[in-house]
């Protein structure tokens, strides 16, 4: 490699491998790519694909228990991996910086913002306030001295993330690695942060690697995308090409799993799950789930080969179309007749102590219908869900279930009401007792309302598991033995086993990967249609609601700002706030800047 080539590339990675220490099982293998100055590469993958491990590997860093076993990371003609450990921090300061996922934990809560910003300069004691204010202005934080004196907890999540970004860009390094920096933020803040990142990279010619699970975010930010699966880059190329004309079957499937906010599109899940390190098959890692698999796929791992100029793929059948089921997972459209609602809320008010959280909420959930309750964090949607589910009792105003008043708080409800309204929680890892098997958890739910005999119990458990497409053998497994998607299905089975009439789904897919999310959404649509279940589907993800619900209620600051049929709300929003929310959602199809 000539020196000239080095100058054109901000970053050149060759054959990087990160493995588990001791056992030597690779977590990330054979990662190679280059970045030009000012270029943003989106590194996309689902959980466990190794994207964060690769991101850290670029900084010659690894998490405990891992080692960087092979490869080169060239920046400015220097191989980061050959630099002795005690020299690395100084080298990283000028060459490659990192923005972590959770800025709340990345900033030291005991130090003022000024101190933490100044640390990124060569001589922290000599940095004057004006330099720091200019730095903050670059990340669109208004230049007030007060901000410099603030502690991290006095800042909002979006402001903290901006400070973390300012720290990374402070010394104008060659490369910045960002690990899902907008994951915890609401869409409006996210849109602003992305805009800032784009501008900083362009103005200072800084290359960036943006690690994310969100294809839409990457589509709106990056010039190039690398898709990771089971520790390998399976496809890399210009964003436009990769997302519009994907060549790898995994990329194709992943894109199909992403819900689209602008049209009633089909979303499809990917059956099965990604293999963990140590269980990866000898051939192509995706072969066990691939609809295009041929015997040659299982023989050996295909190399990452250029198909079109700059668009490489790790597949021996690139770009072949996937035939077969043109499945559409659209939710049933609204029922023609409008029977009496299952649930009616009339001027519902909820408090936490003296603070009023919900101010006069009124809407209906129709029989066999699904209402999507949409809002950003802090809008009160979870409080509302908990109130209906009987988990929050500081309430007054009207709740009616099938015409009869619904008491607040599960302790005031009779067993029949508690059975008829079931709640599915956001995080399946926390909603199932880790010390009990799945079967026991389901059995306890059932035995709360009925006393079935042993055979009847077993039959009902396997019936419930079958409804969510889990094998009966899952009943004997503990939660840690199941994947996130399987756990959420088990949690749904636990709700179904008591034959509820209203299912409250509180952000049930937000802890899951998109491919798994699509499977859960399909399952819920199925249940709604076949079992006549009514549903209240709470989500912050506007794009998702078209795929599941017939009507939508948009909440902000404890009030309903918009309600109506799905298409009405999403295509012709009336409230200004709804319009803003919709405008800020990262669009998959949006043009690359």
């Amino acid at each position, binding site marked *: 490699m000539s020196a000239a080539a080095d100058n054109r590339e901000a970053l050149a990675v060759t054959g990087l491998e990160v493995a588990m220490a001791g056992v030597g099982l690779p977590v990330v293998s054979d990662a190679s790519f280059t970045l030009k100055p000012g270029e943003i590469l989106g590194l996309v993958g689902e959980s466990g694909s190794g994207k964060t491990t690769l991101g850290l590997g670029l900084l010659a860093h690894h998490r405990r228990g891992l080692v960087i076993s092979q490869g080169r990371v060239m920046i400015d003609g220097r191989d980061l991996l050959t630099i002795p450990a005690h020299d690395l921090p100084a080298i990283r300061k000028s060459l490659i910086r990192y923005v972590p996922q959770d800025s709340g934990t990345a900033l030291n809560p005991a130090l003022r913002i000024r101190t933490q910003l100044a640390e990124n300069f060569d001589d922290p004691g000599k940095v004057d306030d004006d330099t720091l204010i200019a730095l903050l202005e670059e990340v669109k934080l208004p230049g007030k001295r007060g901000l410099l004196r603030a502690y991290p907890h006095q800042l909002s999540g979006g402001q903290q993330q901006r400070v973390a970004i300012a720290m990374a860009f402070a010394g104008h390094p060659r490369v910045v690695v960002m690990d899902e920096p907008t994951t915890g933020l609401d869409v409006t803040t996210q849109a602003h942060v992305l805009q800032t990142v784009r501008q900083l990279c362009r103005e200072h010619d800084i290359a960036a690697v943006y690690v994310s699970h969100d294809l839409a975010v990457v589509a709106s930010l990056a010039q190039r995308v690398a898709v990771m699966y089971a520790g390998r880059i399976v496809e890399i190329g210009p964003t436009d090409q990769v997302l519009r004309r994907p060549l790898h079957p995994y990329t194709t499937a992943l894109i199909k799993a992403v819900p689209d906010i602008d049209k009633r599109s089909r979303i499809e899940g990917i059956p099965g799950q990604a293999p963990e390190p*140590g269980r990866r098959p000898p051939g192509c890692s995706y072969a066990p789930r691939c609809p295009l698999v041929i015997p040659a796929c299982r023989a050996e791992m295909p190399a990452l080969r250029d198909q079109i100029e700059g668009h490489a793929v790790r597949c021996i059948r690139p770009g072949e179309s996937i035939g077969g089921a043109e499945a*559409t997972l659209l939710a049933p459209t609204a029922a023609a007749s409008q029977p009496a609602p299952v649930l009616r809320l009339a001027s519902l008010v909820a408090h936490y102590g003296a603070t009023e959280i919900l101010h006069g909420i009124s809407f209906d959930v129709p029989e066999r219908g699904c209402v999507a309750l949409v809002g950003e964090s802090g809008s009160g949607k979870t409080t509302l869900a908990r109130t209906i*589910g009987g988990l929050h009792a500081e309430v007054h105003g009207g709740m009616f279930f099938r015409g009869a008043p619904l008491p607040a708080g599960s302790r005031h409800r009779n*067993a029949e009401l508690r059975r008829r309204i079931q709640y599915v929680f956001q995080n399946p890892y*926390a909603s199932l007792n880790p010390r009990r098997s799945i079967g026991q958890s389901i059995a306890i739910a059932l035995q709360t309302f009925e006393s079935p005999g042993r055979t009847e119990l077993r039959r009902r458990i396997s019936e419930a598991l079958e409804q969510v497409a889990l094998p009966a053998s899952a009943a004997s497994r503990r939660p*840690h033995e199941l994947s996130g998607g399987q756990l959420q299905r088990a949690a749904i089975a*636990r709700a179904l086993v008591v034959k509820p009439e209203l299912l409250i789904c509180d952000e049930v897919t937000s802890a899951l990967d998109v491919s798994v999310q699509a499977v859960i959404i399909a399952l819920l649509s199925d249940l709604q249609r076949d079992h006549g279940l009514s549903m209240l589907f709470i989500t912050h993800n506007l794009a998702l609601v078209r795929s599941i619900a017939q009507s939508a209620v948009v909440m902000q600051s404890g009030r309903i700002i918009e309600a109506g049929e799905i298409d009405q709300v999403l295509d012709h929003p009336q409230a200004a706030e709804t319009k803003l929310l919709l405008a800020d959602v990262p669009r998959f199809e949006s043009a690359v800047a």
Partner: protein
Amino acid sequence: MTRVLGRILSLGSGAVGLALVLIVVAIALIGPFVAPHSPTAFVSFSFAHPTGKYPLGTDMMGHDTLSRVLKGGWRILIMSTGATILGVGTGALFGIWAGYAKGVTDEAIMRAADVLMAFPQIILALLFISLLGPRLWLLTVLVGAIHAPQVARVFRAATLRVAGEDFVRHAESLGVAAWKIILREILPNVTSPLMVEFGLRLAYSVTLIAGLSFLGFGVQPPTPDWGTMINENRIGLMASPWPVLIPILLIALLTIGMNLLTDALARAMLGGARRVDLASPPIEDMPGAAEREIAVAGVLR
């Protein structure tokens, strides 16, 4: 359980701790059956040096030291175990109750615990013993009472964490009774602090009870006891150190061993939770689950 034991043994300190505890416990429990002489028989003059017949010499009264050591351990072991079960049991119960119930109940229990902890505990124990006399059951109950408030704090904290989890919310939404939630949802999830707390408290109980015996408030002479032996023989330390040193050594080994073992236990339970278990296969979806999902999708079109 066997996996946890395996991990404890794989940590060097854990294996050493377990070995020390087992050795001392074996001496205390098997000792009484193999002691060569009666512990109260006057076999020789005071503070005789070790001989073939009396390997550790004799104590101030001319009893055989070896026999007294062998027969003097089981009481302290049983009392410490009893006190620990009592203290950790009541402490855990009240701590979990306080942590789950929150509000007024929480305040009442924890402030009561604060009051108990405000007294210098050894002095309080001494007060009761001097009022009621040196009874062994009383000693056990008092040591248990010393543990309980501190244990309650640990369990309240552990419970607050677990009680915020969604599976507890779920049980509440089903209307499950509070005592059932405590027993079925919370208790199984605080077993790690339970075991660690038990180990640490047991080591503490041993030193407390030995200490009280040393002060003369525990086992009364001429009954053999490690704590009492240290006190009654210390005047002859220069003449023959064995009647003092051996009980000290055994108590020290037991507490050190117990602490090492508990430390290893804590680390084993912490490390075990997240380790990828390559031995057990991942659960596959239902046979044909993929096809079924596609079929489901087809129906919905």
